């Protein structure tokens, strides 16, 4: 990893039911800052790059539509849930949290609540 001692920050996220992968990404450069991966089959760089691309496209869209700042994105696949959240609205550079969950085991509402709490605790 490029940034030291960042992996431990993700400990609370690993306790979310159905956790498969979590990572913190610098949205401006697409660089992975920290990651925890419990699923060998998921490539962290690819998942992180995808999250950064999604956030980038939605930010471009927000520049052209009367939408306020991006907060979070949920993507539903048949077997997985991808949750992407800006850790805070005002961090520079913007930091994204990506959490991938096993859809069979995860509770989306609870997971979203826990991710929101995690992001709040990161800034406190």
């Amino acid at each position, binding site marked *: 990893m490029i940034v030291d001692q960042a992996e431990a920050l993700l400990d609370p996220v690993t306790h979310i039911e159905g956790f498969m992968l979590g990572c913190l990404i610098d949205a401006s450069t697409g660089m992975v800052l920290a990651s925890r991966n419990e699923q060998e089959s998921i490539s962290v760089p690819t998942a992180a790059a995808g999250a950064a691309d999604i956030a980038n496209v939605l930010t*471009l869209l927000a520049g052209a539509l009367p939408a306020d700042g991006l907060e979070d994105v949920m993507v539903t696949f048949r077997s997985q849930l991808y949750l992407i959240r800006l850790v805070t609205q005002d961090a520079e550079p913007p930091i994204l949290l990506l959490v991938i969950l096993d859809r069979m085991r995860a509770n989306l509402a609870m997971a979203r609540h826990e991710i929101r709490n995690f992001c709040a605790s990161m800034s406190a």
Partner: protein
Amino acid sequence: MSQTPRFTRARQLTASVLPGRRADGYPGAVSARMQKLAAARSTGMLPFSGRCDGAIYFRDGKVVYAASGRTPGPATLAEAALAGLSPLGQLTARLAVAEPSVDAALELLSSESRCAKFRADRLPHSDLAPSIGVDDLLAEVARRQRFLKQLSAVLTSDTAVARNPHIRSEAVRVSALQWALLIRVRHGSTPRDLAWELTRSVFGTTAEVYRLLALRLLYVAGHPARARGPLPGDAPDQDLPVMSFVRAVSPQKGDQMPLTVIGTALGAVD
């Protein structure tokens, strides 16, 4: 007798000794040298000279600092200063120290600079320094090179840009950083100039300037056709090749990398 034409042979020979000339596979040789230093857990400085002067510093085989004459240097920060910060504050502070080293390494490994003799035991005095594995650094540099290659048809770090003269400030919705860039752009500013002005990474600034091109808030100087003012409800500039971090990730053997232009799926290529 050699079948290689004399001029080609002369170029091959001089490329390996003259600064500013790239020998075949030279970037690979630098990578291999860095990997050797990592394997030997070396401590010291690998100096570069030529088109871009600078150095990469190692401690116990890990990169702790990199500096280049063409990228802004890292923030100076003491480990003790992190104590009172939130976890996010600590993360961004560590990133502020690591990012300039990655940015400098990208410049040194991408330019036609040559590395000289490794000087053991020469380290910068720095309280808070990153400790980056050589393989991680090389992978990140390669990813950034692939990303910049996507943009290179339109924008490089040294392309002059200008502000769209038709911008109406009440219609502009941008981040604080994008605003800071917009107000600093003069006709002919390059992403590298702006990076120096804001003491930010050249790579990150280039990506941000590209986003501003897509939003039609900036245009490449000399291409006034792109300078039409953004109107409410306008989509991002569809003529610009889409910038994609996914396409910059190293493809695994057999992977299919998606090739898309905004709004139009073109299929997939190997």
